[in-house]
């Protein structure tokens, strides 16, 4: 009975939304693409016209999440780029209900929204979103509380490994040796001295039903993980590695390529936890040396100064960290796998899957 009601509701939502801009000002010019835009075979939870930089990984991640999650959701968004670039008053790029409160309380606000929905007997899913600053650092306590209280909320962290909105300051998520404006490289320092916080393991230690890492380089995998998390009645967590062309210092056109290299070299392992246990990893078909990943980003430029012996040392350190991840999660694939780093986004011109 509930299921039928849900289906009707979804249908009603789709009909209700259409996909066109509610033209508030009479002056707004109709776009020649409006019609076909309204008929795209996917739900546009995050619309065009947002102010993200060119090649923004977070914008892509959020688009993938919202289109997968569908219209029957409510978003609680932490302060950060995503909030700023999607909701510059008087406009919003969202087609789903959205509230931004503060930097550190997205999880708590989401908890309240979920409690309200529970009180009202509604099944709308609440999604909390934040960057790594709002998740690893300042919002960590609220997130931990939300997980512990077992709210039916999906928390998505768009991990771009620094405070980008304020101008690229180091966060708990910033990788070792990366240069940021508060961990600059110089005579005495080789970028960030500390390690990247292993947040996913900490989340998993909350014994939550589902916690996973994902990457914008693998949209099929992102969608699958969002669907998996949406299906769970309880707290779930998704960290989506999202390159920031500005903060990492790379051409926006390379966003996907760089995100993919992060996974392929082992520095950003794709792992799924259920109840604290690793249940699945994305195998790496051909692990790449970390230098392939590092050398295309300005935040690691100081690691390629041939005159500085520390540069080599830090490169080796990062390689060792990648190797550690590969060993720890057993990431090295055995043969060709449709779910590995090459099989997942193949266009099926070769590989193990036969298309007939």
């Amino acid at each position: 009975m509930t299921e039928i009601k849900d289906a009707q509701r979804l249908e009603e939502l789709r009909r209700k939304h259409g996909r066109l801009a509610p033209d508030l000002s009479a002056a707004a010019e109709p776009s020649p693409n409006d019609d076909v835009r309204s008929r795209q075979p996917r739900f546009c939870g995050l619309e065009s016209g947002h102010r993200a930089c060119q090649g923004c990984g977070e914008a892509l991640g959020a688009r993938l999440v919202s289109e997968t999650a569908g219209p029957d959701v409510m978003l609680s968004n932490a302060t950060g780029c995503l909030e700023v670039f999607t909701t510059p008053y008087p406009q919003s790029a969202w087609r789903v209900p959205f509230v931004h409160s503060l930097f550190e309380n997205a999880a708590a606000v989401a908890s309240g929204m979920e409690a309200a929905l529970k009180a009202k007997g509604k099944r709308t899913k609440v999604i909390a979103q934040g960057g790594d600053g709002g998740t690893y650092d300042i919002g960590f306590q609220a997130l931990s509380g939300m997980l512990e209280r077992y709210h039916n909320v999906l928390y998505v962290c768009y991990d771009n490994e620094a405070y980008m909105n304020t101008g690229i300051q180091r966060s708990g998520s910033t990788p070792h040796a990366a240069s940021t404006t508060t961990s600059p490289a110089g005579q005495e320092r080789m970028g960030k001295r500390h390690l990247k916080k292993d947040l996913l393991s900490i989340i998993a230690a909350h014994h939550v039903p589902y916690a996973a890492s994902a990457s914008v380089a693998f949209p099929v995998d992102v969608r699958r993980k969002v669907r998996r998390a949406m299906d769970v009645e309880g707290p779930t967590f998704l960290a989506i590695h999202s390159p920031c062309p500005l903060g990492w210092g790379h051409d926006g056109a390379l966003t996907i390529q760089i995100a993919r290299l992060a996974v392929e070299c082992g520095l950003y392992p794709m792992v799924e936890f259920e109840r604290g246990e690793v249940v699945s990893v994305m195998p790496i078909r051909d692990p790449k040396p970390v230098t392939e990943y590092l050398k295309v980003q300005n935040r690691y430029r100081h690691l390629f100064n041939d005159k500085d012996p520390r540069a080599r040392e830090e490169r080796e350190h990062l390689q060792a960290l990648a190797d550690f991840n590969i060993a720890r999660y057993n990431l090295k694939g055995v043969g060709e796998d449709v779910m590995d780093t090459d099989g997942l986004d193949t266009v099926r011109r070769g590989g193990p899957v036969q298309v007939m």
Partner: protein
Amino acid sequence: MLEALEGSMAIAKAVTRCRPEVVAAYPITPQTHIVENISKLVADGQLKTELVSVESEFSAASVVLGAAAAGARAYTASSSQGILLMAEVLFNISGMRIPMVLTCANRAIGAPINIWNDQSDSMAVRDSGWIQIYCADNQEAVDSTIQAYRITERTELPVMVCMDGFVLTHTYEPVDIPDQDLVDSYLPPFEFKRALDPMNPKSLGTMVGPDFFPEIRHSHHQAMVRSMSEIEAADADWQNLTGRQCGGLLSVDGPEDADLGILCIGSAINTLHAAREEHPELRPAKLIKLRCYRPFPAAALCEACRGLKDLVVVERAFSPGLGGIIGTEVRAALAAGDGPMPRIVNYTIGLGGRDIPIELYPQLIESLDSAHDGAFKIFDVELEKLAEEDR
């Protein structure tokens, strides 16, 4: 029907009558009994609500923000450090014009840590854009809590109901908890027009730049000013239903021709009442109970002070380096009024839970003999306890 209830239990029951859909609970003395009692009512099935036992006051405020944004009637309570930890969220809630009610069980702020009553906590967030109502006794706290929901839901301004910690929260008094039917007739179900809704997906909490920010603040201020009539109407309607009223924005008690006024907020007003009765020999005084501190009822205050020669402002908080907070505001309000200015003397009394005994009253009156206009001091300070250089 009157029953003897601890103040915290009375509040818990009053909240129950308001049918909150979400309650966020976090312990802090002296507010703890309120959430404990609510939790017990929930456990006993007497209160159907989503009780969210959060990990901090910051999250408590955030949870009720989220809940109310999602269209739920929400409640939380806190004190002291908890209110300060909430501060960022409190500004956020009001800035977003989200209706909700919070009970502040007033307590001093550390350091040094002190769990006893004064009003430094709610005073610290007086500019947060919340309506602040101060309660003189537990019945007022019950009635004000119920009224607060009506006010907040009509004005879309959050309401902080302030009651003195321990003095009210931990004191048993005979209290009437109104019937559910009566409250239901007074307080219609919550319909939040801007609620998050997939069928009408608005975006709340947008980034507003210089081109609209002053207008946002202006409209907030206007809403606060206009809410005074709602606050008065809520009390008047309540009186029609129950025969009780809490004193609207402020209330004056005392001989019509008295030219001395004593103004205070919170439960101390009742001590002053008792003291005045105890000391009929002293100079007749009007007692002015300032119930609504935000919005600040300047016009009503001018009216109440008309004809006064002397006005003593007694408060339980102060601004170091300035002096009294309420006193300063009262002076400003009267200066802007059209009547002659009384001499205004400003005392902070009872910080950190120091008792305000009836015996203080004669000293208060006597102090006027020597006090100059604008004098301020911590009235009950015992200087001999201080090293010479700290006096």
